[in-house]
């Protein structure tokens, strides 16, 4: 499927879900009139409708416009390296509440350096450890900025 049409379909999905949720809320509010003159649902109904209209216009534009080059239609949006980086980031986010920011940083900063291109592994480990210690010193110890604490309390 051409990527332009995929974007439009995603927007239809987003707009549709938002519209259904807003209509449901509006029906709940009807007899209660809790929202005042302009209830909380009408605004989101209008925005959802606008998004759906824009999506429809995008589809029309795509169907009427020039065809994209085959390379554009076939190329993946994220390269393997960028996908790996994203996966590591999301794994870091998932692990941090369990192991805490400090341990999470000691594990994931070296991984991030490796994905970003630092070679060999030993250098990534050193950079990662230094960065984790620096973050602890600056953000946690000096600035007392809150960070996630894991099961061990830090």
């Amino acid at each position, binding site marked *: 499927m051409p990527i332009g049409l995929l974007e439009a379909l995603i927007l239809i999905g987003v707009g549709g879900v*938002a519209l259904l949720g807003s209509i449901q809320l509006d029906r709940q509010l009807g007899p209660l009139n809790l929202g005042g003159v302009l209830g909380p649902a009408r605004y989101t109904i209008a925005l959802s409708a606008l998004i759906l209209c824009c999506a429809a216009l995008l589809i029309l534009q795509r169907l009427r416009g020039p065809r994209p080059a085959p390379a554009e239609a076939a190329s993946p949006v994220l390269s393997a390296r*960028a996908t790996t980086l994203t996966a590591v980031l999301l794994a870091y986010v998932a692990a941090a509440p369990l192991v805490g920011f400090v341990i999470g940083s000691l594990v994931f900063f070296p991984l991030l350096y490796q994905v970003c291109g630092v070679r060999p592994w030993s250098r990534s480990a050193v950079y990662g450890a230094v960065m984790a210690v620096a973050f602890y010193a600056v953000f946690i110890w000096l600035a007392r*900025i809150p960070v996630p604490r894991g099961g061990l309390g830090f």
Partner: protein
Amino acid sequence: MAGQDSGPERRPGILIGTRIIDVFLYALEPTNLLYCAIGCILGTAVGVLPGLGPAATCAMLLSLTTHLSPEGSIIMLAGIYYGAQYGGSTTSILVNVPGEASSVVTCLDGFPMAQQGRAGEALAIAAIGSFIAGTFGVVVMMFSANFFANVGLQFGPPEYVWLMVFGLAGVATFSGQSLLKSITCVACGALLAAIGLDPVSGLQRLTYGWPPLIGGFEVVSLFMGLFGVAEIIDSIDTQRPAVLVGKLGHLFPRGQELARGLAACARGTLVGFLPGLLPGLVPAITSFWAYDLEKRISKSPERFGHGAIEGVAAPEAANNATAQAGFIPLMCFGIPTSGTLAIVLAALILHGLQPGPLLFERHAHLAWAVIGSMYVGNVMLLILNLPLVGLWARLSLIPYRILGPLVLGVCFVGAYSSRNSMFDVAVCMLSGVLGFVMKKRGWPAIALVLGFLLGDPLEQSLRQSLAISGGDMAVLFHTSISKTLAALTLALVAFALYQKRSTRSGEPE
């Protein structure tokens, strides 16, 4: 220094000649200078670190400042406030991570300037623009605070509606090559802002029973992800070695560049100042308006988005002017225009001082000491930051394989620190992926962010207006200010459509 002053000359907003000397004598007292310096340094550091905003910093320090004198307390908090406006631009320019919402627009041309080896010029003009705007604001406060404060009081909910609509129309017609994509992004941003608890009824809206969504999305996480994280993912994807590949250029703008930058600073100051008098109008909006104006009046608008110095100078001047102007309604009427100024108000009350017209009569020494310290603080910020321009600019030479994880870690901490929530961190990282995809596919992330920022105030103002009028939409056209803003909005849209048609840019796919 507590006590009451008396005398016929002590009228708010009107300064008699000899009092100018007194203002600076108060501000230049060693202890006040020290508090000003501490506030400026803290504020700049806060501005550089994304996520830790001036409001949170002021709140954390509020209890400590009760041990200081009233002047010292307010001077320090004020220094944090306008220091943060400047500091937020540093990371915007160097690594495309806005430190504050008001620095989002600076990314558009600041980061491209850094990529061209002109980080020094960008940082320098940001500092100079902040100084010009801050000084202008202080001078206005000294001579005509009351007049401008009264102007701000003319704006009610209907006027706010048109201000927001004007802002949204400007975003939609300005950003990106495709009008349709811009409008879509603005609508999506406004929809994102609507998710969570409705502030009027308290009902959950579009949360679908998922608890993390009840609190809605945090704007800091969103813009750090869309700009900062997206940039790192993009650099890894394209295997770009560093922000700048090559040599650093001039550290300070020269000749025509300097002249263009200074002119943009002046215009940005004027654009940012008046809206700063209005409560709830975030500096991000005024910085966008200043940018939009520069792009529209420029003889070569194609330079914008690719390193135009005006694209840094104007927004930075505007956001500082807005920050400075916020003190006028605070000091004159006790009306805070932002969360940070609400904390300054709390500090004043904690010290037994009631902001308002009587502040200038009963505690003239405090009021004028604060005003004088603002001027001194602006000079101090310039002195602190200009010499560091070369050092900061060298950060653009650091390879992405070293810089990338550092930026990602800062975004992680910044996103978490807003609400102590891992949900915000997840939003930051996921919006980074979204921002990367948007960048590749030509969807303007700036429109999404500004739609998010403007959507909520627009809805609230509209609901307040209709509540006042009992549902009659005609309330939006009652006052001359409303009609003027409505006309300006229509003119903006018509002009933008005319421009699109005459350049025949089309929609790139």
